[in-house]
């Protein structure tokens, strides 16, 4: 797969538009997934993905291949999503403070279903969506996409230490949310 993509990148860099289209076909779902995880909104994710491929189209010739194409694509996606979220934050009248408590209105309290790891995954996905974008972006990039602290800082336009602090807060929040779920379940189990 990676070799195929490398071939397509090489051809697209030489101006082969069909190769570029094929490259889009091969990668757009992955790009959309990251954009959706960063923005938490399908329409915003769509906008981000379109912006990403416009940027890729314009700057593909400058892609030196030091990193994998997908890594490069992820970095552009993170950057575009950060720009969009920054713009949105400027126009938002009720910003969510970073320390605001996160409420999950739909907790999974069924101990039998809890045995299924899919439940934890769903809870985690919900919890990620409930985090302020600043925090969720860092944890998504680090813990799902394996970005380095340096890369996160560069793409989000923050310092490395800020990236580390946000990551720590985000993990703590996720941990707290899931811990609350577990406590509720235990209480429920004892009550029965």
């Amino acid at each position, binding site marked *: 797969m990676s070799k195929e993509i490398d071939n397509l990148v090489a051809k697209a860099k030489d101006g082969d538009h069909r190769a570029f289209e094929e490259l889009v076909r091969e990668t757009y779902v992955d790009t959309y*997934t990251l954009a959706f995880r960063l923005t938490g909104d399908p329409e915003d*994710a769509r906008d981000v993905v379109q912006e990403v491929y416009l940027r890729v189209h314009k700057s593909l010739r400058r892609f030196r291949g030091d990193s994998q194409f997908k890594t490069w694509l992820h970095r552009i996606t993170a950057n575009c999503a950060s720009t969009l979220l920054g713009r949105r934050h400027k126009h938002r009248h009720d910003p969510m403070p970073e320390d605001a408590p996160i409420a999950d209105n739909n907790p999974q309290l069924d101990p039998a279903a809890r045995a299924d790891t899919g439940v934890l995954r769903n809870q*985690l996905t919900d919890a990620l969506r409930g985090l302020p974008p600043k925090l969720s972006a860092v944890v998504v990039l680090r813990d799902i996409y394996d970005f380095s602290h340096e890369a996160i800082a560069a793409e989000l336009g923050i310092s490395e230490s800020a990236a580390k602090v946000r990551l720590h807060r985000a993990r703590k929040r996720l941990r707290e949310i899931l811990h609350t779920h577990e406590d509720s379940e235990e209480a429920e189990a004892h009550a029965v």
Partner: protein
Amino acid sequence: MLCDDVLLHLAQTPDEASNDFLPLPIRHHLATCLSCQAEQVHYRRVHRELQSLKTITVLPDERLLDDILDSVRPPATVIQLRPSRRRAYVSGIAAAATAGAAGAIVLVSKLSSKGQRLAG
């Protein structure tokens, strides 16, 4: 060492599989504190689940691909498409004209045969 200090470390490094990377005082604390051990397990579990999201994709709506391709399609490609459309238009007009002409011939031939009969 306080549990809070240990928890700070655990939140920063849940991706490490072993405790060898941790400072010695924290390792000592972890060895004896059940509460912190439980926290470490929870952090690692959350981290594992986050990692597992790597393989899960979110599917966009069907129009997205076309929209992306349209937005990056070079103008030359648009120009290339035009002759084929033009050919389609010309073929359509030619077909309509042929049908019209054929109709006219049939009409004229019918009228002329009627006129001959009347004259006879």
